[in-house]
């Protein structure tokens, strides 16, 4: 095997020019540049029917019954609620809600599994799941996953004091969900308290299984 000397490789990488090569390497440099110049860079245009074929496959998948049902459950929707109330009624409702929350918080906590993910059953199909991450020094933390279309802004965690512990509680539908924490809007972190799976693209997602009895990490 006849290796190119390192300066010739640096020439091909664009880190050196031909004039910067030692005279004894210039011939090898010219030969190497000739090799790279022979590479075909002709643009490749695909068949005009490609779009139609892709969209036919996409429509077929989108109209399958199971997929329609899943999308109905899984897709977030924007809801606008307009109320016309008298101020005294709003205050009374607020006080009633606050009393309800206080009552709820003073009840003994439900038995929850250990680990970063704890859960409390809200309804038979929706369970409150608590997400906790120790991230000292973070300015903001959020949890994104299949339950919120990986939206980095949908579920921010709040700091619990100044110790670097962040947490939030989400109402999740029964089922298996993949998720990850997003620290400072750019760093994706798998939950250290939960096993992770490969997402198929070289990154790791944590997994939580939500059942009517609670939530557990897989």
């Amino acid at each position: 095997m006849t290796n190119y000397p390192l300066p010739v490789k640096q020439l091909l990488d664009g880190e050196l020019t031909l004039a910067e090569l030692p005279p004894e390497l210039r011939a090898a440099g010219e030969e190497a540049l000739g090799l790279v110049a022979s590479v075909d860079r002709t643009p490749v245009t695909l068949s005009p029917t490609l779009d139609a074929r892709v969209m036919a496959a996409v429509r077929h998948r989108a109209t399958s019954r199971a997929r329609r049902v899943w999308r109905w459950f899984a897709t977030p929707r924007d809801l606008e609620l307009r109320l016309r109330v008298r101020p005294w009624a709003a205050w009374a409702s607020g006080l009633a809600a606050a009393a309800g929350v206080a009552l709820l918080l003073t009840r003994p906590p439900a038995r929850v599994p250990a680990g970063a993910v704890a859960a409390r059953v809200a309804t038979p199909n929706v369970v409150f799941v608590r997400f906790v991450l120790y991230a000292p020094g973070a300015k903001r933390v959020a949890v994104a996953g299949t339950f919120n279309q990986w939206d980095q802004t949908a579920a921010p965690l709040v700091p619990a004091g100044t110790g670097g512990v962040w947490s939030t509680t989400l109402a999740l539908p029964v089922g298996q969900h993949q998720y990850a924490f997003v620290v400072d809007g750019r760093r994706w972190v798998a939950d250290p308290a939960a096993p992770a799976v490969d997402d198929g693209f070289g990154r790791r997602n944590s997994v939580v299984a939500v059942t009517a009895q609670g939530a557990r990490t897989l």
Partner: protein
Amino acid sequence: MDSRNGTPDEAVVRAVLAGDVELYAVLVERYRDRYARYAARMLGSRDAAEDAVQDALVRAFDRLADCREPAKFAGWLFLILRNRCFAERRRNQRQGRPLEYADEAVAGPERSDGAVERRESVQAVEHALGQLTPEQREAFVLKHVEGLSYDEIAGLTGATVASLKMRMHRAYDRLRDLLKEHES
């Protein structure tokens, strides 16, 4: 002009996920040719590239809910296409099928008498590229065909710049050997 053409990827992805399936055509039109040359150079022919791009676009639709950062749909789609190209190459290697370059994938129509020599030279290099490992060939194609920097390639593939340079330097040496064999 279709007013949807200027819609950012993120908005299109979210609209498709919300049920507007037809809007996926915007992404198909936007990205169908962007990575075609990469796929053709990785797989050796325009037909193989077309199958790979089609599969990648359909697979991306299937997994659209897993796209963590819809604003970076292009890079995410590239990873799907890249996995598809590598899988096909490995499948062919297991079956003992060498990468064969079709003429249309490696050279345009001849334009002058001197083009014959140029075409032979191009075909020799393309044939040699087919002998590299998929990782070496990808690094070479992205740098010297697509014109990306090492940093850009690292951002696309997730490899470090140091490992990319190592792959590339091995590719240079291997190409040199293969072309000398070809000449002799």
